[in-house]
């Protein structure tokens, strides 16, 4: 019996989303074709767009379907950069962003952008005051709505308001927040001037039970953003390519379901997560919950196991049928120490000793029980204090 506690990495495909995909895939027709078959496909696509816009609280024309969170983030950052006002060259980026952001901005810096880094607090929360201070004159700013590793929820409304006041375009990475937090693009944008303040927001389908391979970038009507993919006029010319009608249908279905159960799921997941955390801290007194203790994603438990080799912990849990994550990206085959954990002020060694458990739609109490049954022994072995009897 496997226990999956890595929903932040991906979560099971919702049956309804699968059915929506299968239904839509039955029809043939390129949504850009002018004939009847194309029109049918187009109708389905635009219905999906409208449904998605209703959940994300934006205009349908502001929904740009992409291949997922990474593409959305790349499109937003590179797109805003390419279309930046003359004379601006700075990018405001907090220090604990996802690698899609970090790596993209690294490439932009190599191409001449100037990085204005914003520290995060020990909880991984963005320092809103420093963020605001760094904004004036910047070409663009970006921020996580909620930290994908630590689970900490940022004050997106404050960040968006600061950007509007400073007259800087803002991108919000809502990939890990979607389905867990209320997200209103319209609300966050407020009455920011054209092309300024919140102008773009990234979301990904497979985090909420849609298939891998579909996501969206919400792009404000007035945003100045260049396309990444060229080769057609689809989607306001912002994202060329034959549109994935089936993917969009599945995504819209998943969005609606995720939103409809968001409040009840939040309560359910938070209760299980709290039991998980309490149970781990009881069995492993040396362990420490990282991130904000109250303002955190309901299913996220980000825990430091001092002195334990993260790789070993993962292995032992895996052997016990439990899937979790170290939350760090795999670079060149080697798990790098998490830059997020280090941005939270921890040592490189600590950054290698953190596990992220994340709950989701299919999580049950049995999953929690399994972790609690295995964690003490796993910690003992992984920290070298296990009984390694070598003659």
């Amino acid at each position, binding site marked *: 019996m496997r226990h999956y506690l890595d929903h932040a990495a991906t979560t099971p495909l919702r049956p309804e989303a699968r059915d929506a995909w299968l239904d839509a895939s039955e029809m043939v027709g390129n949504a850009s074709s002018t004939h009847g078959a194309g029109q049918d496909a187009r109708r389905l696509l635009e219905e999906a767009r409208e449904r998605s816009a209703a959940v994300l609280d934006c205009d349908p024309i502001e929904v740009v379907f992409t291949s997922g969170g990474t593409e959305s983030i790349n499109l937003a950052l590179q797109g805003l950069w390419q279309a930046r006002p003359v004379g601006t060259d700075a990018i405001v980026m907090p220090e604990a962003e996802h690698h899609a952001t970090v790596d993209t901005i690294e490439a932009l810096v190599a191409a001449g952008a100037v990085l204005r880094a914003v520290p995060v607090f020990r909880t991984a929360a963005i320092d809103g005051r420093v963020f605001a201070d760094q904004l004036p004159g910047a070409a663009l700013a970006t921020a996580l709505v909620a930290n994908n590793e630590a689970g900490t929820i940022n004050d997106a409304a404050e960040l968006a308001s600061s950007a509007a006041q400073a007259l800087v375009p803002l991108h919000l990475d809502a990939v890990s927040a979607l389905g867990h937090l209320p997200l209103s693009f319209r609300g966050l944008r407020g009455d920011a001037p054209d092309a300024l303040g919140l102008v773009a927001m990234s979301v990904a389908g497979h985090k909420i039970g849609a298939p891998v391979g579909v996501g969206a970038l919400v792009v404000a009507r007035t945003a100045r953003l260049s396309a990444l993919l060229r080769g057609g006029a689809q989607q306001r010319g912002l994202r060329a390519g034959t549109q994935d009608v089936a993917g969009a249908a599945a995504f819209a279905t998943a969005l609606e379901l995720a939103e409809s159960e968001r409040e009840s799921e939040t309560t359910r997941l938070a209760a299980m997560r709290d039991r998980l955390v309490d149970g781990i801290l009881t069995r492993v007194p040396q362990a420490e919950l990282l991130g904000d203790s109250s303002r955190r994603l309901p299913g996220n438990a980000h825990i430091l196991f001092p002195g334990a080799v993260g*790789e*070993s912990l993962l*292995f032992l849990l895996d*052997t016990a049928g439990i899937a979790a994550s170290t939350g760090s990206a795999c670079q060149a*085959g*080697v*798990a790098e120490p998490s830059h997020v954990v280090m941005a939270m002020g921890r040592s490189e060694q600590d950054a290698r000793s953190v596990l992220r458990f994340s709950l989701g739609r299919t999580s049950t109490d049995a999953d929690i029980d399994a972790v609690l049954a295995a964690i003490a022994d796993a910690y003992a072995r992984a920290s*070298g204090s*296990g009984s*390694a009897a070598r003659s």
Partner: protein
Amino acid sequence: MSGGVDSAVAAARAVEAGHDVVGVHLALSRAGGTLRTGSRGCCTIEDALDARRAADLLGIPFYVWDFSERFREDVIADFVSEYQAGRTPNPCMRCNEKIKFAALLDRAIELGFDAVCTGHYATLIPTDAGLELHRAADNAKDQSYVLGVLTADQLAHTYFPLGTTPSKAVVRAEAEARGLSVAQKPDSHDICFIPDGDTRGWLAEKVGTATGEVVDRSGAVVGSHEGAHAFTVGQRRGLKLGVPAADGKPRFVLEVRPVSNTVVVGPKEALATREISGGRFSWAGAAPEDAEFSCDVQIRAHSEPEPARAFVSADEVRVVPDRPLDGVAPGQTAVLYVGTRVLGQFTIDRTVSAVPVDA
């Protein structure tokens, strides 16, 4: 599982023998490449993928474990410092000694495993007196030399399924038969962390260059070089000598003196070594009972074993070969054999020339 055919077949045999096997690829170098560009060096991302696919085929779990920091400290740093000290290191010995059968083995045991299994060509033979490490059946592939640094404790937790296989060709055929995609993958050679094979260039980057003198045994300057660390005893190539030898014969590196950044050269005959000794030694089993005994000594991974007398004290092992050895560099490992059995090894600290200086 390096991604090579040997470790893939070793894993397959371990599974077939009924063991509970987990495949592990060691990430040892942070600066690794992505694609395999040749057979030098190891282990690119593509190598890791080859290892993963072999594990997939065998139906065993697969992990990539990061020992890059330990590797940097125990193997790479040692490699550089040995060259800086004028010695010729053997990083594969250090890796076996400190990483594969130490750091990795320690972790494996902590995680509940019994042994580390590799594709090395060597044989373990249990006897009443304990486990013995022996050469592989195929002399051409025998890798008992690089395992000579293992202790009895380590050997008790190793497993070498390929040792008794008659030849590499048989291993490749078996890989083919099992459907392993790496069946015809070329063997990697040279140093795994210097994929382009340019050790001198790599060292120059780490250690820098410094012009120094090349002298003959009388002290006369016969040329210059860009860093003594780039030279090894017995080396002939790379010597840019302005003054030819009086006898017109080629000259070889006899000695590297790092403190003065000097390289000493001389004729081939001067390479003859009549005694080697060292203070860092280990036994692949119980220590020998006699203080003096006959054995065979091998000073390179693929050189002929030479009959010799060994003299063991508390502080050092001294070996006098029956015939002089050629071009022995301090820092190399001398492995002692009795028949096919590995007795132990020592790192060569001191060599005594068979030829007087003014000859």
